[in-house]
């Protein structure tokens, strides 16, 4: 085991620093979870009676969330593919 790897392992064991990839994957998964929750909330709100202006704003927010979920999944996929390689 190389010295760098050894230090990485010690850091991980002590919980000081999880490996960069793992931490990034965790972050994306957490953001995706929150975005999905937000998507459900916005969808619920759209089902209720809201004025035209609010409806427009909610629809825009929903589209943004869709795009971000799509982008997030892409990044996650990339990381998983790299791991397999």
């Amino acid at each position: 085991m190389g010295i760098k790897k050894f230090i990485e392992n010690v850091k991980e064991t002590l919980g000081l620093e999880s490996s960069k990839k793992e931490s990034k994957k965790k972050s994306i998964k957490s953001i995706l979870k929150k975005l999905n929750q937000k998507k459900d909330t916005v969808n619920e709100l759209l089902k209720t009676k809201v004025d035209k202006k609010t409806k427009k704003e909610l629809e825009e927010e929903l589209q943004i969330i869709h795009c971000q979920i799509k982008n997030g999944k892409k990044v996650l996929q990339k990381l998983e593919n790299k791991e397999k390689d």
Partner: protein
Amino acid sequence: MMLRRILLPTILVILAYGFWISPDFKEIAAGVAIFLFGMLSLEEGFKAFSGGTLEKILRNSTDKLYKSIGFGVIATTVMQSSSLVSVLTISFLGAGLIGLAQGIGIVFGANIGTTTGAWLVAGFGLKVKISAYAMPMLVFGVILIFQKAKALKGIGYILAGLGFLFLGIHYMKDGFEAFKSTIDLAAFGGTGIKYLFIFTGIGVFATVVMQSSHATLVLIITALSVGQISYENALALAIGANVGTTITAIIGAMSSNIVGKRLAGAHLIFNLVTGLIAIIFMQQIMYSVDLVSSNVGISNTDYTLKLAVFHTIFNVIGVVVMVPFINKLVIFLEGSLKDTQQKNINDADFDRVKYLNDSVLELPSTAMAAIIRETKHLYENSFEIITHGLNLKRTNIVSSMPLSEVVDDLYSQDAVDIDKFYNNRIKGIYGDIIDFSTRAQSSMSPEDIEVLYQVKLANRDMVEAVKDTKHLQKNLLKYSNSTNKYIKKEYDTIRKDLAELLRNINIIATTSEDDVIILILSKAKIHMEKYDIVANGTLDKLIRNSLVTNEMATSLMNDSAYAYDISKNLLKMARVTFANRESDINSLSDEMTISDEDVDLILEKKDN
């Protein structure tokens, strides 16, 4: 200064004379020199590992006083250097990452941690032939020092440092043993209050000369082990070493910044109080030492270990006595040691850097933290001038007041002087950030330099946004009061949109929710496109229907471009400056914020 000039040659002459008349004295002095060199090497080694882990531990373990003290104890025990812990603490204080109370807690803990040195030397160093360990350590250490990898180099310095420490102790011990046959130093000692003060004074002097209480203590222990000094006199010397180390710290703090001076002040007060307690209650502490020693199985005649017990007990007493007064100590130090740089700034309109000072340059991570904090400080000033330049009130922006009302509530009837504000509160700070960044990056890793580059760009973006606000201000004031309701409406829309952006940036600056940051950045990116009044047809409509004059149309076209640039620059700045560096949001915000194609798609759908 004068004293320093005289002191050095005097010491050199005395040493040279000593070497000439006594080869044994030369051996002891060489032992001390090798020991001190070992400490320097050890510090160098631990510095190699201060690229993140050490700082992370420090940051996470100093939020409560007991944790700060614990950190001081453990870090000093592991690194065997209270001065390295002090340097780290001053660096963190300088960057504003910890408060003075926490810093004082660490220094108190370091005082307890430093007592482990006496335990190691008395319990291990003198009981075994440590020079046998020193040689292989030196060989392996030096080989590793020549390696390219930073971690290996660090381990090399630590090994070599320990090797030199052991070798130094060996020479000191040998020197004292040989010295004994020619001169018995113990004959100069004695008991009673007079000798207590004399030996305390010698301890202070020796520590000031050697610049290390650790070295003094090792010298005391080795001398005590061969009976060159009596147990009582060794205790007085140990008290002196503790007081002497504060003088070393004060000399160091003279060239330090205000936080370093305050910490040195706390150190001085702690050690003076502790020393005084130890002198007054000497008999009681000695009784406690006997009691503890017999309970832990230390022989009554093992004076070196008893000295270690004494050293620990009196430092622990000092911490116990001083801890309840930490807050009062902080108030006293902050009140008596004022920041002269801040004091000289009499003009309330004038502002300078808050976090950039030489102490934070000790570590790349503290330098980075200080630069980011200073960038946030610059944003506070930029936020103020941009808001006032748009004739808006800051309190309204950060509130939940409807934006239409925010725009109606004017800051002033007259135009604020953006140039004056820029010169007094932006330009100097910006210049200092750029200058400091250039100095800081020399000790940074390539990854850190890349981050620093982004931070420098964020600062430039901010300054550009202020300058664009100045260009926007003239027509904004003119047309916001215009009798032409169409042009007034357009300029109010610009103000409203920028107010919304500033409000969103305030949310980004204050939230820790990653998804909120990413969502706001994406939303702002879409809203920014609205400023393009040529593309969205607003300008055409106004001209075609002769609702505005040609002059108005030209102004509107230019000013909407300024508004677009302000938004673009502030957004870029917010992403770099306010996204939590500890999380992955920095890189993720780039990848997850919607792309230009997504923006076009959403805007197209909206139009349909």
